[in-house]
Structure formats: structure tokens, C-alpha cells
């Protein structure tokens, strides 16, 4: 199958997955008990008022109609208006998306900065005490809940040393230094734990590659051990690591939501939690759709990347 056809097929799968996910999200929210009109008007409201509001909001129509309406608006960025706060949901999401994305991407960078060097080192030195020490360290690192790490980091750097703020956020546009200062502790909290997890995979991948025959051929032709590692090992070891990266990004997203709470960052996570507390179903619905969509898209991207890296898969259908 040619590359283009394969790409189209993959894109098709993504769209189907997104569609199915949207149905699932919508249905789950639809069957949840709670009449939005009643929630908005309160317990004291009269039946007529409730019925009128239901007509206004459009929740008295069939499920299919409601779904079609909602899904139709999604590609345009129209998520509807919150029943509870009357704010345009799409706008809210857009506002806060930047925060969460900064958090997630920064966290991933930190995680990679830890995982790759230490993982390679642990693999190359796996027979030494230093290699074992690194492995033990990674086990400790991944057992730690990221929010605990965040609290401890906040204590050391914000409460005791007072170098960094423990909460709040500044937009990148309003000042890069302040932006970094507010995000540094969250990045570390997310990245350290994720880094430990990733390190195990990197180490495993590098160990596997080191045992391969083609490494020996490379050395027989005249490369040094390190030369062979760089030239041949990296690309081959990257393949299994990239696969894991996709799953890890989803985990990172979830972790980011929790970390937002720890450091009171105005991101999607805190908005979501508030929505749940307020029983703001439409908001919750839209936000979860965005998050699920992201995760699915990321996984799709990883699959594509995987094919790019490993030529053996290009021929496979």
C-alpha cells in the first residue's frame, strides 16, 4: 500500500474513533441524572418555568437531535453555552487550553531530559553498581505520586526558600520569566515522576538494541562501541520508546489536571473540576470531549511516527 493511502486510512481511523468517542461522551452525559433546567433554576422553580427553560435550551428534543446539534458545532469550536454560568464554553476552553498545554509539554520535556540520558547510562552500565543504582532510583521515582512530589517541591522551594511561587500563573505574552517561574515547580513535579517511568523503557530499549547482531557488524566494520550506539542504536531504540510515548502523553495529561489543582493553575483541569462540582453537564461534556480527542489524536500521531521510524512497517497494511 502506498504511503498516501496508508496515511488516509490512518486518518480515517482517527475520525471514526473521534466519532465513536463523541457518541460515548454524549450518551454518558445524557443519561446522567440531573435536569439542566432544574439545576439552573433551583429547587423552588415552577413546572412551567422549568419546561420553558427546557424548550429554550433545547433539551426537550430527542437525544439524536441534541447530539447532532452538539456534534455539529464541535468542528467550529462551538461547544454551546453553559447552563449554569451562561459563559460560552468554547471560549472558556480556548482560554485555558494554553495553560494546560504549556504544563503538559514542559512536563514531557523534563521527563525526556531525565529519561534519555539516565536510561542510556543505566543500559550501558547495567552490569555496574552505578547501573543498578539508577534502576533502583527509577523504581523509587515512579512510585511517588506526582501531586505529592508537587507538594514537597512547593514546600522546599516556595515555603522555605521562597525562590518560586506556589500558585498562580502568568501568560507567556505577559512575561516569559514570570511564566517560567510559575510553571517550573509544576513541570518538575510532573516531569520527575514521568521521567522515572520513561527511563525504564529507554533502558529496556537500549539494552535490547545492544544485543542485536547489527551492532556487532557495525563494530566489525570499524565503529567504536559508542559510535555504533549513536549511529545505529539510537534510531532502533527510539522505536519502542516512541510507542510508549503516546501512552505516556495521556498519563501526562491526567497528571497535569491534578497538578493544576496542586498549584492552582487556571487550566482545563481546574475548570473541569469546577464543572463537576457545579453539575455543569454541558461544560463537562465539552471539556471531556476535547481531552479525549487530544488523547486519541496523540495516539494517532504516535502511530504515524512509528511508521516513519521503522521502514519495516511501511510495507505492512
Amino acid at each position, binding site marked *: 500500500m502506498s504511503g498516501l493511502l496508508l496515511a488516509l486510512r490512518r486518518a480515517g*481511523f482517527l475520525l471514526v474513533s473521534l466519532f465513536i468517542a463523541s457518541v460515548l461522551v454524549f450518551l454518558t452525559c445524557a443519561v446522567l*441524572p440531573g435536569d439542566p433546567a432544574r439545576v439552573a433554576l433551583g429547587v423552588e422553580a415552577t413546572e412551567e418555568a422549568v419546561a420553558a427553560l427546557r424548550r429554550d435550551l433545547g433539551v426537550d428534543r430527542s437525544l439524536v437531535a441534541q447530539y447532532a446539534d452538539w456534534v455539529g458545532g464541535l468542528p467550529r469550536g462551538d461547544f454551546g453555552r453553559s447552563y449554569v454560568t451562561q459563559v460560552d464554553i468554547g471560549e472558556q476552553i480556548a482560554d485555558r487550553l494554553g495553560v494546560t498545554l504549556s504544563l503538559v509539554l514542559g512536563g514531557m520535556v523534563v521527563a525526556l531530559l531525565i529519561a534519555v540520558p539516565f536510561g542510556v547510562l543505566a543500559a550501558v552500565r547495567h552490569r555496574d553498581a552505578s547501573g543498578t543504582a539508577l534502576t533502583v532510583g527509577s*523504581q523509587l521515582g515512579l512510585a511517588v505520586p506526582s501531586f505529592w512530589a508537587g507538594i514537597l517541591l512547593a*514546600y522546599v522551594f516556595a515555603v522555605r526558600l521562597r525562590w518560586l511561587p506556589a500558585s498562580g500563573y502568568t501568560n507567556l505574552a505577559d512575561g516569559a520569566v514570570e511564566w517560567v517561574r510559575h510553571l517550573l515547580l509544576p513541570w518538575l513535579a510532573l516531569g520527575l515522576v514521568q521521567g522515572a517511568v520513561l527511563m525504564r523503557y529507554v533502558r529496556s530499549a537500549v539494552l535490547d538494541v545492544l544485543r542485536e547482531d547489527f551492532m556487532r557488524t557495525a563494530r566489525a566494520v570499524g565503529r567504536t562501541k559508542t559510535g555504533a550506539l549513536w549511529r545505529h542504536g539510537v534510531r532502533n531504540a527510539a522505536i519502542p520508546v516512541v510507542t510508549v510515548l503516546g501512552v505516556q502523553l495521556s498519563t501526562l495529561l491526567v497528571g497535569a489536571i491534578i497538578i493544576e489543582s496542586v498549584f492552582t493553575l487556571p487550566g482545563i483541569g481546574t475548570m473541569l*473540576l469546577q464543572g463537576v462540582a457545579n453539575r455543569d453537564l454541558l461544560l463537562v461534556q465539552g471539556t471531556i470531549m476535547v481531552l479525549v480527542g487530544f488523547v486519541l489524536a496523540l495516539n494517532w500521531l504516535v502511530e504515524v511516527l512509528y511508521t516513519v521510524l521503522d521502514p519495516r512497517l511501511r510495507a505492512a497494511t
Partner: protein
Amino acid sequence: MTADGMAAAQVDPLLAGESVSGVRGRRSGNLAARIGGGVAALVVLTALVSFVWTPYDPTGIDPENLLAGPVTGGHLLGTDNFGSDIASQLMAGARVTLLVGIVAVAIAGLIGTPLGVLAGMRRGWVGAVVVRAGTILFGFPALLLALLLAAAFGASTGTAMVAIGVATIPAFLRLSYAATLQVMASDYITAARTSGLSGLQIARRHVLPNISSVLLVQSSVAFALAILAEAGLSYLGLSTRPPTPSWGRMLHDAQGFLFTDPLLSVWPGLAIAAAVLAFNLLGDGLRDLLDPKLRDR
């Protein structure tokens, strides 16, 4: 193996056969299993003991000693802002931790495994559909499910258990699918087929026993992840409600007193980390001990 199968094996280093302790195999596997098993047993023991005895009533109040430090006023680890004994809360908190872990892993295993085995045994479109469904479900992390459930029914231990359990199904699904594929490729399966055994019989007699060791390892690791997930949900207030003690919620409450009583934040976090580490080590150790037959290294 198809690209999907290869991807499945890649995602699961369990199947690809590499472990953390790696080269030294049996010896270090033994060590890891022992340490992990030991600490895990300790956690279980603590939870069980807490039903019968705790130093103080975990939900009780001691107005004399608010926010006391360790070994103060007869409280080994101090008290929180209500005067409740920290040590007792930790012990009782173990109950929730273990309960959620057990139920979540049970849900995931009992639903994911049969589906995975089915998909692995029946090739063709059934297999493809199940794997695709698993991939989509993978996009729903436990947190999001828990949020939905909490929005509907109000947060509770129950919603947390179900959310984590459902979110772990894809992991068991993928694992049992890939493992079943490996088993199905063996010669004795062909022999069994030729001798006329039905699919169900083959599954029961040949597939399940052979994938059981991988499943056991996965269960231990999934348990560790469930503990972590529950802690996170508790922290956000999406799991066990007060006054039932829970480690995650203890951590949330402690954060408010970071300036005045930082130690409060240490104990529950330590408990969570210890429990997660224990089950992870147990899983790793089991893998080293059980797997050499499955691996060809």
C-alpha cells in the same frame, strides 16, 4: 505478527520480555519479589489489623492536641487539625487503598481477559474490532471516567473503583490478546485442534494456564497503578468521602497546612509511595521468576 500485534508487544515490555532487574534474572527477581511482597503484606496486615485495633479512633477528635507534631501527647505521628491521630488514619486508610485496588483489578481482569482471549483465538474481524475498541477506550483515562461518574452520582469509593477498573480494561485486553496470539502459534494448539477440542476447552485447558503467569504479573503492576490512581482521585475529592480516612484526601487536607505543619504532608505521601513501590517490586520480581520460560533470551 501484524503491525498491531507488534505494537501491542512493544507497548507491553512485559511481553517483550525485559524487566528492570534485567540481566541478573532469578537472583534479583527473588529479591524484588521478597521486598515487594513483604511490604505489600505489611500493608495488607495493617489494613486488617485496623479493623480490630488502632491506637486511636481514626475519626475521633482530640481537642487538646491540634496539629501536634510526632510523639507528642501520646500520638506517634502527631495529629491533624481536628486532633485526629495520624497513625490511626494511616492504618484505616490502608483499607480503602486495598479495597479499591482489588475491585478495580478484578473488574479489569474479569472483563478484559476473556475479551482479549476471545479476540486472540478468533482471528478475523472479531479480533480487529476488539483491539480497536480497546484502543478507543484507552483514550478514556480513569480520571475522566471518575469525573463523569462523580458528576452523575456524586463522588464515592464506588465511583472511583468502577472508573479505575474500567480504565484498566484496555491494559488487560491488550495483554491477554497478545499473549493468546503467542500461545495460539504454538504447535500443541494445533495438536489440540486436530484432536477435536472445542474453542472453549482449548481456552480453558491450554491458553489460560499459559498466560496466567503474565496475567499475574500484570495484576500486581495494575494494582500499583490503581493505588496511585485512587490516591489522585481522593486528592481531588473524587473518591472516598469524609469521614472515612483515605490517604489521598489526607494529603489534600495537609496541603493547607504546609506553612504550619509540613510533616502532615509527608506521612500519607510516604504511605502511598511505599504501597505502590511494594506492588511494583512484587510484579517485577514475579516477572523475573515466572517468565524465563516465555522469554527466549
